[in-house]
């Protein structure tokens, strides 16, 4: 039977990545010297599984590499060796190394790497340094899979006398003497004699015990080891004596195969005659007209399938692990949907339809829309994963970086169970890494500096995630020195981002770090440098329909706040009309909608009107003007103002009318066209027409109303002056 092992590769790789993740996080929990055996066990188990799987599926480079890891872990687990911090470091490096080896499998590349070899040597040095018998005996194991090689002991037929006297409990180990005899028979000719001596009286006989013993004569080319192998599983449960009685040299008659070689095998000759010509080229030493030739023996065409070295197909699809509870709820929903459908069907199939059925129909439709929404939510939930998937990489990152920087850092993770869409998760990881690196590098002070400033020498970086409305908020908080506004401002002036005499608030100055062409690092360090600036971080987050902000208190630390939609696929929106055109305004950005009290509108020049709303001034953006729709109502008092907020700025969108609020499946406009300013995407409405989704922050930018920019207007001041 041939089985294509490559079908299991993906599962193996997935679970190995998971194992490595577990290994990594447990390693970070380890305190050298104070070893929690449960932690070591978990780490050991992960390495052990990877080794077992990789060996089985033919990834020998990984199997060989994990072998040394496993040996070391086993020694630590058994208390034969103290855990040292060097071990933890090496093991962490191994986790990385194994990750790249697994990646290599995915990419159909060779898994061997110098890094792995280097690490393997270091482990071996540790293992050799304190030599254990274990290591020596372990080496034999890697070849354990290659059994069945030497079943033919040689060219000598031996007559063996074997005594097999099992203990009474033999059956309770699940072993069966008959099978053992059959295995021996495969080695050669056997004669079995049973010995009933120990058989008790019937009254004393326990059906569960074994009382018999046997004497077996075996004529075979097999070696003592081959025979022992047959009894391998029962050697502790039986008295086994294997004795060599006689040996018959196997003379090679070479040219005349049919000639009888010994009297003992005379009766077999006829059989072997048919066999011998089948493999004439094995000639010389091996031509042995005797029946004990095992079917397993080396044959001209080796049938042993070599574990496939490269996967036949590499699927690009990524998989997602879903909790069964989510699947169950999905199944429940579908169940309800089927019931609703049955009910509607019944209505539809009725011979006549009158007004009396209308209520039932309405109910059915209401139920259907309820079912659909539930189903949609359940399906979306499948894509939702706890943010711990992203958080989990940070303990390691923080450990490595703080070591490099010689800083003492405590990492706090909060809200790890907060869920967000898998796609968003994959894309937010890199910007977060960058922000954390930045906090460690620029935010946190060295221990000396901290002490000098009256702080504890250990700095804290906190990652906090929580839901707010339809968004997930991720905060990266450090208790370091805070942003240096003077320095930022100076840099911005040097780089031509602002004019030297520009008046900016601290918040506005801090926002400058997200502008393209800005870099605060005096010397571009290995860590924050990397050619990626905060502007890229911001751009990546914006691309996810998210925002990033920074707030900072000098001497006390900085907080970066990332705000992201929970999912990229569905949007809660408000339909608005502008003339004949229907647009969607994301519900999350809507603060309120109101009719305009014309007496509270002031013109501030440059064609800009502001509405005084309580104690705020809201600039009015006429959508028809911005979007160039001539057919819309143009008077402020005829329309409605949708007050929206983005990037801490509030503006009012003048629209003709508000229609329904509902959820929309977001369709990309860029897929077949391109990015359109002021539009974030499209959706398809119930009537099949396309409607565009308004991009609030893009719109504000489009209107040139962006704060903190030279070309923009600052409402906080000019407006109050103007009124």
């Amino acid at each position, binding site marked *: 039977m041939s089985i294509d092992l490559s079908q299991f590769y993906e599962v193996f790789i997935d679970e190995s990545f998971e194992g490595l993740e577990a290994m990594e996080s447990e390693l970070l929990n380890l305190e050298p010297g104070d070893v929690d055996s449960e932690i070591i066990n978990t780490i050991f188990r992960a390495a052990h599984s990877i080794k077992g799987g990789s060996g089985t599926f033919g990834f020998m480079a990984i199997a060989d590499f994990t072998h040394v890891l496993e040996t070391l872990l086993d020694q630590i687990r058994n208390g034969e060796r103290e855990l040292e911090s060097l071990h933890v470091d090496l093991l962490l490096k191994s986790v990385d190394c194994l990750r790249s080896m697994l990646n290599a499998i995915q990419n159909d590349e060779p898994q061997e790497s110098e890094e792995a070899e280097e690490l393997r040597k270091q482990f071996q040095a540790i293992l050799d340094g304190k030599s254990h018998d274990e290591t020596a005996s372990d080496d034999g194991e890697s070849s354990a899979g290659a059994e069945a090689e030497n079943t033919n002991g040689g060219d000598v037929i031996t007559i063996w006398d074997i005594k097999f006297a099992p203990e009474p409990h033999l059956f309770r180990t699940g072993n069966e003497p008959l099978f053992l005899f059959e295995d021996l028979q495969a080695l050669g000719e056997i004669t079995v004699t049973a010995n009933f001596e120990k058989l008790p009286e019937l009254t004393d006989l326990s059906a569960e015990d074994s009382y018999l013993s046997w004497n077996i004569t075996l004529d075979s080319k097999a070696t003592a080891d081959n025979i022992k192998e047959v009894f391998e599983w029962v050697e502790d449960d039986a008295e086994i004596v294997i004795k060599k009685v006689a040996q018959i040299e196997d003379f090679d008659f070479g040219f005349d195969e049919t000639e009888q070689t010994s009297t003992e095998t005379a009766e077999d000759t006829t059989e072997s005659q048919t066999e011998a010509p089948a493999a004439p080229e094995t000639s010389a030493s091996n031509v042995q007209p005797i029946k004990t030739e095992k079917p397993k023996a080396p044959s001209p065409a080796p049938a042993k399938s070599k574990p496939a070295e490269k996967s036949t197909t590499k699927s690009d699809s990524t998989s997602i692990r879903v909790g069964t509870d989510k699947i169950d709820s999905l199944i429940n929903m579908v169940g309800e949907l089927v019931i609703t459908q049955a009910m509607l069907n019944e209505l539809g199939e009725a011979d006549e339809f009158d007004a009396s059925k209308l209520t039932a129909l309405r109910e059915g439709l209401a139920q259907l829309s309820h079912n659909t929404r539930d189903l949609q939510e359940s399906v979306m939930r499948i894509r939702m994963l706890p943010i711990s998937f992203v958080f989990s990489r940070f303990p390691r990152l923080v450990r490595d970086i703080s070591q490099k920087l010689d800083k003492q850092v405590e990492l706090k993770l909060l809200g790890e169970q907060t869920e967000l869409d898998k796609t968003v998760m994959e894309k937010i990881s890199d910007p977060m890494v960058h922000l954390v690196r930045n906090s460690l590098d620029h935010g946190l002070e060295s221990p000396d500096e901290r002490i000098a400033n009256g702080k504890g020498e250990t700095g804290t970086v906190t990652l906090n995630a929580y839901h707010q409305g339809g968004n997930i908020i991720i905060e990266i908080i450090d208790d370091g020195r805070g942003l240096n506004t003077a320095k930022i401002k100076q840099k911005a002036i040097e780089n031509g981002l602002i004019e030297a005499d520009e008046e900016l608030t601290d918040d506005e100055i801090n926002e400058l770090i997200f502008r393209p062409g800005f870099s605060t690092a005096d010397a571009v360090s290995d860590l924050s440098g990397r050619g990626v600036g905060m502007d890229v971080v911001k751009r990546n987050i914006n691309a996810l329909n998210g925002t990033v902000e920074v707030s900072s208190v000098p001497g006390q630390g900085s907080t970066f706040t990332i705000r992201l939609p929970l999912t990229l696929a569905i949007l809660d929106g408000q339909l608005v009309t502008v003339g004949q055109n229907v647009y969607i305004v994301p519900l999350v950005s809507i603060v309120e909608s109101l009719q305009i009290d014309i007496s509270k509108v002031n013109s501030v020049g440059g064609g800009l009107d502001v509405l005084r709303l309580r104690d705020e001034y809201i600039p009015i953006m006429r959508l028809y003007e911005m979007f160039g*729709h001539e057919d819309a109502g143009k008077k402020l008092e005829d329309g409605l103002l949708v007050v929206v907020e983005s990037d801490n700025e509030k503006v009012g969108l003048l629209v003709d009318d508000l229609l329904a609020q509902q959820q929309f499946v977001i369709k990309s406009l860029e*897929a077949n*066209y391109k990015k359109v300013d002021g539009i974030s995407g499209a959706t398809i409405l119930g009537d*099949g027409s*396309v409607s565009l989704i308004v991009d609030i922050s893009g719109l504000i930018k489009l209107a040139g109303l962006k704060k903190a920019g030279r070309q923009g207007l600052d409402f906080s001041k000019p407006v109050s002056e103007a009124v």
Partner: protein
Amino acid sequence: MAMDQNATLADEPLNDLTGEQAELVQYLTFMMADEEYGIEILSVQEIRGWEPMTVIPNQPDYVKGVINLRGTVVPVIDLRLRFGLEKIDYSDLTVVVIVKVLINDNEKIMGIVVDAVSDVYNLDKDAASKAPEVGEVENKPFIDGLINVDEKMVVLLDLEKILDI
């Protein structure tokens, strides 16, 4: 949409330079302002009638808007306006040819508005003259070549360039 099949010229010499082993490519041709234009038929996905569409704000006049093509949002480009030809009112004959093009390594599906679909020809692309001889200077970059069919001139278009907007 009816396509006249009888004018297939597969086995007629297309012009003097045609070799026996010429590789023939199928072209769909359509009419605009009395000119016949051809695009490779392999890029054509389907042909639809004109329908009202959703306007995309602040786009060039030749971008007519987006339509819903079985759940995909597809932009529609008016080829007359793209070529700077005179604008005409859309009629029953006005068609939208849905094409699949590779723009900057991204496969995009777009619609082009033309006056009417004309014909399908098997043409030898190599036989087309590269540079337009007269006029059309403005649209020269959009033109792949000119070819004579039945004593008519067909302008072969470079859709990738036309739709890279």
